[in-house]
């Protein structure tokens, strides 16, 4: 059996009809809560105003409503007990606190109350269902005293609490819809006529619309625009720039088409999966880079690898049900073929595609889902010699056996064979689950508070 047939068999159950993923949930009775923010103490750390004491006041944004407090005149150390509140549907809501110094002569100064360099205000979330407050390094619950201080010029220390009071149930309350404000997309027309078919294909299949819809439950401070465009000869990717559009180059798709041609893939399903999966992963990777920047998330490890890992994780865990395998499988095949064709550069900040392939493969093995396990096994056939692939298949089968049967099965393998003397064997056994769990933990701690879970489908919510 050829590798393409083997892969085809593994993905025959993948839906090929492109459709927009569903993110709506059934309407139901909506419970409401009142979010209350109380600012108890403000202390200037340095002189906010060189001519006099501070005239502090605060702007508090709960959800989409911004409220302003009174001004505490001429005091660098004030206990104002400012209280601001808003009734909201039960769920996760964003809160922003800005501390300002009133200045009659010029625009008011935004006082730094955030220890993160370059960010002066505080952004966090509250889940009124369980009264947990997210977005800080420390874990807080309703009513906990939270103290934050800035580090830049014109800084202060702020002490406040956040609580959620249960309100009466309103059966008629409208269900919050996922906000489309802040999400946009554009298909640029390429000047190079050679790229026109790729432009037309993306546009006809509404690829960006699908991706925008997929990421719409994300709540980010800044607008996100997905853009496809011609990047220039030899450029298959544009570097991520904070605040700029997230770009997919037509030249990247041209490379995918070239790899498909060279690989002599016959299966239309596999061809289509490779196209859509590669595009989805590439755009999600740009989105995750933007998430890291917009939310100023702590990222340990090379940021490009981190973006890859989070994109792969999101596909596995929250991929639209009818497209998850197509996306994940297609991206995996691309990495395998691209890795094979690529001239490796180990000095770059982006990992070679072969490394990206094994990272992607690792997660497929660790996801605990047979369909991804089958995909992963099929991919290995794409890159290995027939003997190695067969031997490795025995190992994959072994991993799924009950522990008491693994020992005898392991002894039947030829562990002197190249593939088993590599780190791949060791990584599957020892590390892949750990790597997957690391990203899951990071996702839960840092990103989940910024996702409107009411905007996810029931299937997606069940995987959280």
């Amino acid at each position, binding site marked *: 059996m050829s590798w393409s047939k083997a892969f085809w068999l593994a993905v025959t159950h993948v839906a090929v009809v492109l459709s927009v993923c569903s993110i709506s949930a059934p309407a139901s009775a909506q419970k409401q809560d009142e979010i209350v923010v109380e600012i108890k103490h403000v202390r200037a750390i340095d002189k906010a105003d060189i001519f006099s004491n501070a005239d502090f006041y605060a702007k508090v944004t709960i959800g989409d409503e911004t409220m302003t407090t009174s001004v505490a005149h001429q005091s660098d150390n004030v206990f104002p007990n400012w209280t601001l509140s808003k009734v909201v549907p039960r769920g996760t809501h964003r809160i922003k606190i800005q501390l300002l110094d009133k200045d009659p002569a010029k625009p008011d100064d935004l006082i730094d109350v955030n220890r993160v*360099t370059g960010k002066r205000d505080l952004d966090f979330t509250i889940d009124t269902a369980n009264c947990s407050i997210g977005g800080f390094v420390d874990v807080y619950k309703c009513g906990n005293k939270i103290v934050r201080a800035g580090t830049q010029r014109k800084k202060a220390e702020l002490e406040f609490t956040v609580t959620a009071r249960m309100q009466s149930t309103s059966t008629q309350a409208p269900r919050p819809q996922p906000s489309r404000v802040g999400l946009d997309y554009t298909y640029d027309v390429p000047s190079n006529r050679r790229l026109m078919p790729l432009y037309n294909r993306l546009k006809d299949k509404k690829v960006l619309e699908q991706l925008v819809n997929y990421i719409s439950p994300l709540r980010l401070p800044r607008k996100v625009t997905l853009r496809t465009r011609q990047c220039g000869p030899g450029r298959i990717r544009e570097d991520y720039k904070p605040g700029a559009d997230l770009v997919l180059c037509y030249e990247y798709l041209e490379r995918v088409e070239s790899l498909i041609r060279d690989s002599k893939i016959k299966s239309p399903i596999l061809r289509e999966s490779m196209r859509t999966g590669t595009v989805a992963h590439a755009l999600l990777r740009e989105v995750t880079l933007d998430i*890291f920047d917009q939310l100023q998330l702590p990222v*340990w490890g090379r*940021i490009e690898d981190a973006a890859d890992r989070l994109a792969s994780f999101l596909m596995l865990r929250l991929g639209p049900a009818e497209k998850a395998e197509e996306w994940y499988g297609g991206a995996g095949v691309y990495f395998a073929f691209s890795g094979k064709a690529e001239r490796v550069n180990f000095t770059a900040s982006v990992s*070679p595609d072969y490394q990206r392939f094994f990272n992607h493969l690792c997660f497929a093995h660790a996801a605990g889902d047979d369909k991804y396990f089958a995909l992963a096994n099929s991919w290995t056939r794409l890159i290995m010699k027939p003997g190695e692939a067969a031997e490795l298949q025995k190992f994959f089968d072994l991993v799924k056996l009950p522990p008491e049967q693994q020992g005898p099965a392991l002894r039947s393998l030829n562990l002197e064979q190249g593939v088993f003397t590599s780190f791949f064997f060791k990584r599957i056994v020892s590390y892949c689950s750990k*790597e997957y769990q690391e990203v899951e933990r990071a996702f839960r701690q840092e990103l989940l508070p910024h996702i409107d879970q009411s905007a996810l489908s029931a299937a997606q919510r069940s995987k959280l």
Partner: protein
Amino acid sequence: MIFTVRAFIFAVCVATTMSAGDQATAQEVALQNPNVPFEYRKAVVSKAEPDLGKLEGAQAWLEQRQFLQRFATFISPLKFDKPLLLKTQTCDIVNAYYDYKSTITFCYEILPFFQSAAMKYGKPVATSPGDITAEDILIGGMGFTMLHELGHAVFDLFNIPLFGRNEDGADQVAAFVALQLSPELTQKMVKGGAAFLRHAGDDPKAFVDYTDNHGSSTQRFVNIFCMAYGYDKTAYAYVAAQGLVPPERLANCAAEYKQVENAFAKTLLPRLDKTKMAEVRAKTNWFSRDFR
């Protein structure tokens, strides 16, 4: 904030480096965290590797220099909820590792390895800023290795979110901490860590070697020097001049350093005991006493 971190790490990290037979002072002992016990297990000569008989010498070398005591002092401001054991032992392989059961092990086999690498690859004396000396590789390399393992330990024990690869993150912890030291020790740690990685092994040549959860030696070497250049492009001008990091990546090195600084500020800084930091900072003569 970073100034504070820098001052703290300057003071504590020098305490971890290997000095010529210093005895720990009462102040050092007082700084040690009771949650960080240490033990020197007896070096065992392997029958399979008779050359490892020299491990008894490695044990004496490390004990004499109070290697583990000093490392325990170094990490005393970290607020661990449960004990982190530091130990040295015979492993039959050249390695240092964190076992995800609250123990960092420094194998005796690694000392002869570093000593050999220092003799083989290090210059006796630096004649230009970019020269890497034998001392850089021995002292800096061993220090960097322990900091790398500390990175794994804090990720695990503090439940730190890891979007990127754990191994690269541990390298970043080591490089970031190293970069907060005094300029001389910073250079030593960065050069030692990078040189060790440069000579630790060949780059992958076959696809099966791309599979490891570590980056390749070249990737790790370039990552460290890129962070250093991003932190201070004047002090690390030789990184650009010698092409240790390719020109197309140099422009991004400041952002790479900033990324790690942000991660450190958000995840590790809140876990530091400021009182202990101050105590450690007060001890400023370790460096000169150790290396002069």
